[in-house]
């Protein structure tokens, strides 16, 4: 089989032709080798240790801040009346938003038969899991007395009380924990065949046992694959509404309240678009360096980056549209409190944060209309970082401006984070990157079995193609006709 040249421009659309999704040598064994080699290096590079040392230190800072918080109490944070939510909820919404890309790629793009997802889904799903872990941390510490966390669950207790199911905050508990569980199962299930590959290649006893246990004894059986594919399709179908529901429910935390700037029907779609926007930005932020460091350019091709950039452009435009329509509705509603809130956002004491948000989210991603920019990884990286910053500030704007100036001027206040707030937020990045670096070191970072099924060696070019998904046409064999009769 002739290898496809590595510098082929596979972003071009040729009618009636499928763009190759894997460049370079694309037989099954070389894909295995390329991906497994990363997890099989005898020792990590110096850069890995440097990154791991930094992020592990930041994780230590996070735990130190948590210890200080639990020891002293919520007073160490900048929260006050009226701004009782502050950094904890901003960070929660920020991280859970980032956690949307993985399951979107693995579920929605799977149902839409977007085969380019195969190179990046493992990576994005891992990022999702780690982001949701960081997200879950913040409401958990925000309750103030985390040892009473079990009150959130409908457990029989000595007070004979139950949680209040009419509160969106409780819906959120169910939404985020379900999302985490389902994403974890989806991720792990997708990884089982690849873990079996690592098990079969393992030379040391420890690796054989560790990957052997993780692979559950997978042996590529056709009967197993049949149920596996069914289960994968079902999980994708279940995860698709779930992805859309999670950030909708998060937005209910705001929208179900009465506060001007929060009490808006646009919130669920606006939050979901923002979540996908920020999630894809974080995928690009992580993917571009990893692709470069591990020489994965043949698997994660310019077409993958181009597609992700287009999704960022689309969702970024939706977010920008929401920002503008919020202003229109504030004026059109004739509600003076609503109008004031939005003028206050753009011109009030926190106007700087509003304009950071607007520039990073609504203006900078518009550069992605230019194809040349979509194909310059360095520039994409810079734009994706701007999006990450902008989306954090979006949550800052929503939480802080609405809470600090609500209906009565007598109850207005000012919010500033303390050093504990800032270090806790920084520490959550440490936790995220620590988990991520461990993932890069020990697990298959590209879904090998799935990528293998979109390359020509999988037999795609043989027989009439059915036109959807990784399917190979009819079986070239005479008994089929008899069966049909």
């Amino acid at each position, binding site marked *: 089989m002739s290898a496809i040249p590595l510098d082929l421009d596979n972003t071009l659309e040729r009618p009636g032709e499928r763009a190759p999704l894997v460049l370079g040598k694309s037989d099954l064994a070389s894909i295995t080798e390329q991906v497994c080699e990363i997890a099989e290096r005898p020792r990590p590079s110096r850069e890995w240790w440097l990154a791991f040392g930094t992020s592990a230190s930041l994780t230590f800072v996070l735990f130190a801040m948590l210890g200080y918080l639990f020891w002293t109490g919520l007073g160490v944070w900048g929260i006050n009346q009226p701004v009782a939510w502050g950094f904890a909820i901003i960070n929660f919404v920020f991280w859970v938003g980032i956690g949307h890309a993985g399951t979107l790629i693995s579920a929605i793009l799977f149902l839409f038969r977007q085969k380019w997802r195969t190179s990046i889904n493992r990576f994005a799903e891992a990022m999702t899991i780690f982001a949701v872990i960081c997200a879950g941390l913040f409401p958990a510490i925000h309750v103030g007395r985390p040892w009473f966390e079990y009150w959130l669950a409908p457990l029989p207790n000595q007070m004979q009380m139950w949680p209040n199911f009419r509160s969106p905050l409780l819906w959120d508990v169910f939404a985020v924990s379900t999302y985490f569980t389902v994403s974890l199962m989806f991720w792990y299930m997708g990884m089982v065949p690849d873990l079996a590959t690592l098990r*079969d290649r393992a030379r040391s006893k420890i690796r054989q046992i560790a990957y052997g246990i993780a692979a559950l004894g997978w042996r*590529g059986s*056709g009967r197993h694959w049949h*149920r596996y594919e069914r289960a994968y399709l079902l999980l994708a179908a279940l995860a698709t509404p779930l992805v859309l529901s999670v950030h909708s429910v998060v937005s209910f935390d705001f929208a179900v309240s009465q506060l001007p700037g929060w009490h808006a029907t646009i919130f669920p779609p606006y939050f979901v678009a923002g979540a996908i926007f920020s999630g894809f930005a974080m995928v690009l932020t992580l993917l571009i360096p990893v692709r470069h460091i591990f020489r994965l350019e043949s698997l994660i091709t310019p077409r993958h980056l181009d597609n992700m950039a287009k999704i960022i452009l689309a969702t970024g435009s939706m977010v920008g549209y929401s920002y503008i329509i919020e202003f229109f509705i504030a004026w059109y509603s004739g509600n003076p409190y609503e109008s004031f809130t939005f003028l206050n956002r753009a011109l009030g004491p926190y106007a700087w944060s509003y304009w950071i948000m607007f520039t990073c989210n609504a203006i900078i991603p518009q550069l992605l209309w230019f194809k040349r920019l979509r194909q310059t990884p360095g520039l994409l990286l810079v734009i994706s970082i701007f999006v990450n910053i902008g989306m954090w500030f979006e949550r800052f704007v929503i939480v802080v401006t609405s809470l600090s100036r609500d209906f009565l001027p007598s109850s207005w206040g000012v919010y500033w984070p303390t050093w504990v707030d800032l270090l806790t937020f920084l520490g959550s990045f440490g936790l995220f990157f620590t988990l991520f670096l461990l993932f890069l070191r020990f697990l298959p970072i590209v879904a090998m079995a799935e990528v293998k099924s979109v390359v020509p060696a999988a037999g795609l070019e043989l027989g009439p193609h059915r036109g959807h998904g990784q399917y190979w046409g009819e079986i070239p064999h005479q008994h089929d006709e008899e069966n049909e009769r």
Partner: protein
Amino acid sequence: MSSHAEEKGRLWGLLAEYETVPAVLEAAARVRDAGYRYFDVHTPIPIHGLDEAMGIQVSRLPWLVAGCGAVGASTGLLLQWWTNAVDYPFIISAKPYFGLPAAIPVTFELTVLLAAIGAFVGMLVANGLPQFFHPLFRLERFRRASNDRFFISIEARDPKFDPRATRALLESSGGRPVLEVEG
């Protein structure tokens, strides 16, 4: 599973190796048509069309998932109604004790959660996983089943199994090499 490997003492079955997808598909269909029931195909990737080539019945997993989803939905609704409207009714923000719109998010989440667990656990249980040992793992060559080669295994417990005839079938279908697997 291997306790019935009677014919040749400890022979578990035969394993044939194929290099390409069309080759293994065709061979699987021939093994199916020869009337074997205890045979399997081992591939590094899911192959569409293999189900027909092997004569696999469509999985009933979706019914299990639907059942789990129904349990999740009814649990969600009953839990919210019973805890907030029956066992400990309390008025908050003048909301009704139980209102369907407010109950939808939790009901939806529990539906998805239980259905997803049903799909994942159901798939593993139906596949008999985890199963950490299998006679095929004895073969060094079988390790390529998770890399770049395709295999067909026929178990000795199959009523049609005959060491020589079965080997001849696998060889004539293009299996190179055909190996014996110890039980």
